C-alpha cells in the first residue's frame, strides 16, 4: 500500500497543473466562471439534500437539548445546559458509555484477529471459496431487527443453543444468556460479532488481494516460516485496511441500538445498556425529548472527537494516496 505515493498525486489538482495545451482554450475569466458553474451543478444537489435532511434535523435536535420538553405542546421550558449536567454526571449514563467502550474494545481485540485469520484462510484456493465468502457475508445483509429476533429465540433458556450444548456434552456451560446481568452484555457482543464479522472479512480479503503474491513468495523462499511471512509482510501491508476497519467498527459500536433493544431492551437492570438504549429509555419512554436530544449530542461529540483524533494520528499516512491505485 505504500508504493502508490506518486499515482494519486498525478490525479490531483489537475486544473492548475495542466500544461498549456495547444488548441482553443477559453480565457481565464471564462474558465473561472465555467468552473464555478460546473462545481455548483455537481456539488449543490448533494449539499442541499444533505443539509436539508441531515444537518437541519441535527441542529434542531441540538436545540431541543436546551429545553425541558415532553414532546407534547410547545417548547417553552428553557433550561440551558441542565440536561447536559444531568447526562454527563449521571451514573446510569456512565454505565451505558462504559458498555459502548467495552464493545468497541472487544471488537478490536476479538473480532479483528478472527477476521484476519479467517480472511487469510479464505484467501487460499479452497473449494467453494465463493460460496464461503457469500455465507460469511450473509449475516451482514440481514437487518439488525431480523438478526436480533433470531438470536433472541436461539438464546432462550432451554432453547436451541442450550439444547445443542447439552447434545455435545457441554451442558455444564449453560447459563442464562440474556437474563444474567453479568453475561448479557457479552451475549450481545457475540451476536454483533456474528452479524458484522462478514463485513470485516470481505474488507480484509479485498486488502489481501492487493498484496502481490511475489512478496510473500520471496519471503517464503528465503526461509521465513509462514507465521513470519504473515507477521512481517502481510500484516503491515494490510495496515490501511485494518485501520479503516477499526474506524468503522468503533463508530458502529458507539451507535449500537437496534440489536440490543430488540434482544434485551438494554436490560436486565441496564446490564446491556448502550448510549442509544439509554437515550430511548430516558428520552422517548419518559417523554423527556430534550433530555434524549442531549444524549444524542453528547454521543455525536464523542464520535467526532474520536473521528478527528483518529483521522489525524492513524489515518493520515494512509489517506495521502495509500488507499488507491491508478487505474491503468
Amino acid at each position: 500500500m505504500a508504493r502508490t505515493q506518486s499515482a494519486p498525486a498525478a490525479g490531483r489538482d489537475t486544473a492548475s497543473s495542466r500544461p498549456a495545451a495547444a488548441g482553443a482554450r477559453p480565457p481565464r475569466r471564462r474558465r473561472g466562471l465555467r468552473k464555478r458553474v460546473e462545481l455548483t451543478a455537481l456539488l449543490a444537489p448533494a449539499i442541499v439534500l444533505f443539509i436539508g435532511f441531515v444537518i437541519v434535523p441535527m441542529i434542531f435536535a441540538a436545540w431541543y437539548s436546551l429545553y425541558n420538553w415532553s414532546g407534547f405542546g410547545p417548547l417553552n421550558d428553557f433550561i440551558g445546559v441542565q440536561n447536559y449536567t444531568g447526562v454527563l454526571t449521571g451514573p446510569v449514563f456512565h454505565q451505558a458509555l462504559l458498555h459502548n467502550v467495552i464493545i468497541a474494545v472487544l471488537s478490536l481485540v476479538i473480532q479483528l484477529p478472527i477476521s484476519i485469520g479467517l480472511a487469510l484462510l479464505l484467501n487460499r484456493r479452497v473449494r467453494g471459496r465463493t460460496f464461503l465468502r457469500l455465507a460469511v457475508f450473509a449475516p451482514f445483509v440481514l437487518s439488525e431487527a431480523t438478526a436480533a429476533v433470531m438470536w433472541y429465540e436461539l438464546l432462550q433458556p432451554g432453547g436451541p443453543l442450550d439444547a445443542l450444548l447439552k447434545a455435545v456434552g457441554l451442558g455444564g456451560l449453560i447459563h442464562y444468556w440474556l437474563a444474567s446481568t453479568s453475561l448479557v452484555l457479552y451475549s450481545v457482543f457475540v451476536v454483533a460479532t456474528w452479524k458484522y464479522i462478514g463485513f470485516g472479512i470481505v474488507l480484509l480479503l479485498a486488502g489481501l488481494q492487493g498484496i502481490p503474491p511475489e512478496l510473500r513468495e520471496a519471503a517464503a523462499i528465503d526461509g521465513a516460516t509462514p507465521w513470519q511471512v504473515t507477521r512481517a509482510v502481510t500484516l503491515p501491508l494490510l495496515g490501511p485496511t485494518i485501520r479503516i476497519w477499526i474506524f468503522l467498527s468503533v463508530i458502529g459500536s458507539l451507535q449500537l441500538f437496534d440489536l440490543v433493544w430488540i434482544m434485551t431492551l438494554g436490560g436486565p437492570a441496564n446490564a446491556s445498556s448502550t448510549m442509544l438504549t439509554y437515550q430511548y429509555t430516558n428520552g422517548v419512554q419518559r417523554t423527556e425529548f430534550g433530555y434524549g436530544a442531549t444524549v444524542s449530542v453528547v454521543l455525536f461529540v464523542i464520535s467526532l472527537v474520536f473521528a478527528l483524533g483518529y483521522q489525524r494520528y492513524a489515518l493520515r499516512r494512509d489517506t495521502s494516496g495509500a488507499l488507491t491505485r491508478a487505474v491503468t
Partner: protein
Amino acid sequence: MRGSRKPAIVAVAVAAALAIAACSSSSSSSSSSTSASSSSSSSSAKVTLTWWNNGNTQPLLGVWQSVAAEFHASHPNVTINVDPIQSDLFTTKMPIALKSDNPPDVFQQWGGGQEATQFTSGKLANLSSLTSSWITELGQAAAGWQVNGAQYGIPYDQHVVGFWYRKDLFAKAGITSPPTTIAQLESDDAKLKAAGITPISLGGGSRWPDAFYWEYFAVRECSQSVLQSSIKAINMTAPCFTQATKDLTAFMATNPFQGGFNATQAQTGAGSSAGLLANGKAAMELQGDWETSVVPALTSDKNIVSQLGWFPFPQVPGGAGASTAVLSGGDGFSCTTGASEPACAEFLQYIDSTPVQEELVQKGGVGLPANTAAETVLTDPALQAAAAAHRNAAYDAEYFDIAFPTNPGQALDTALANFFAGKGSNETIINSVSSSSGH
C-alpha cells in the same frame, strides 16, 4: 433561522395539505370534512375517522373491525378507518402523531397521569359536554379519565390485577384452596416447589409486571388517604412505601419465580411469563384480567381458560390499606380536537353501549367491561371472581405508572425492574419519581 414554529406550521399546513393530496398515494389520513355546524348529530355531513387502537391480535382485531362496520351501518355518513398498532409502539408514535397536523381522530388511551401528559399537547378533545348525557352509566370508572375535572378520555374496559393460577397444578401440589395471606402464599409456593413446579412466572423483562408486586404491597400497607395524596404529589417518602419494599424483599427471598425471570417477556411467545402459565410450566402469575385473552394463543390446549382460577392479592398483616383494595386500570380512547369530535364521541358512546360491551367481553376477550351492566355475560368463573373483587373493592388504586405522569411512571417501573434484578435499593425506588432522578 429559528422563529416560533407555530405560525410557520399553520402557514405551511394549507400548502402541505394540498401537497399531501397531490403527492401521496391513497392514505387513510383523516380529513373530516365540511360540516361547519358541529351539531351533535353527525347525520348531515360525511366524516371519516382514523382510529388507532392496540387490538392488533385476534380476537380483538376482528371484533374492532366488526364494531366499526356495525357503527358505519347505523351511521352511514361516518366511515371508520381502523389502524391496529402494537401496544408498545404507542409510546413512540403518539408524541409524533400529536405534533402532526392530522393526528388520528380516535386513539388508544390509558388515562391517569399519562393522559394528563398528553393533554399538554392541546390536541385532546374535551368530551365533557358531548358525553354528559351518558357518562354517568360508567360510574366511578370514568373518573380516572378526567384531567382537571373534564372528560378527556373514555374507557371501554376495566382491569383489575390479581393472581391467575392453574387449578390442575394446585391440585397436584395438594393445595386445596387459594391463599388469602402472604404467609399462606409462601407456604403454597413451597408445596409447589416440592412437587417440582415453578410457583410463579414473572415477566421481568417487560418491567411493568415487576411493578405490580411492589405496588400491591404499597396498596396493602398504605392507608387510602396516604396513598392517594402521595400519588397526587408524586412523592413516595411516606413510611408505608418503605415497608412495602421490605415486604417485597422478604417475599423475593423465598425465590418464587422461574429462573432467568429478568429477561422473560410478559406476553410474547411460549417462553413469556403468560406462556409459561399457559403451558403448565408455572402455577401462578400476578396479572391483569387480560390474561384470559392472552393465554389461548400461547398454547395448544384449547381449554386453557377453564383451567385457570383467580384469587385476589393476599392480605398483608398490619397493613393500613384495605384488604379488598385492588390495583386497577383500564383501556379507553381519546378524541383529538377538530370537526370530527361529535362523530368521535358518538362512536365512543356506541362502544360503551351494553350490546357492544357484551360483544367485547364475549368475543373480544377484553376482560371486564367498563359498562358494568355487561358483566352479566361473563361466563368464566375466574373472570367473574375478578369482576366481583373489583365491584366489592373498598377502593381502586390505579397502577402507578399510569397514575403518575409518564416520566415518573416510567422511572418507577425501571427502578422496580432494576430492584428485581438485584440492582437498587429502597432509596432508588422511592426517589425514582423525583424529577431529577434515575439518570
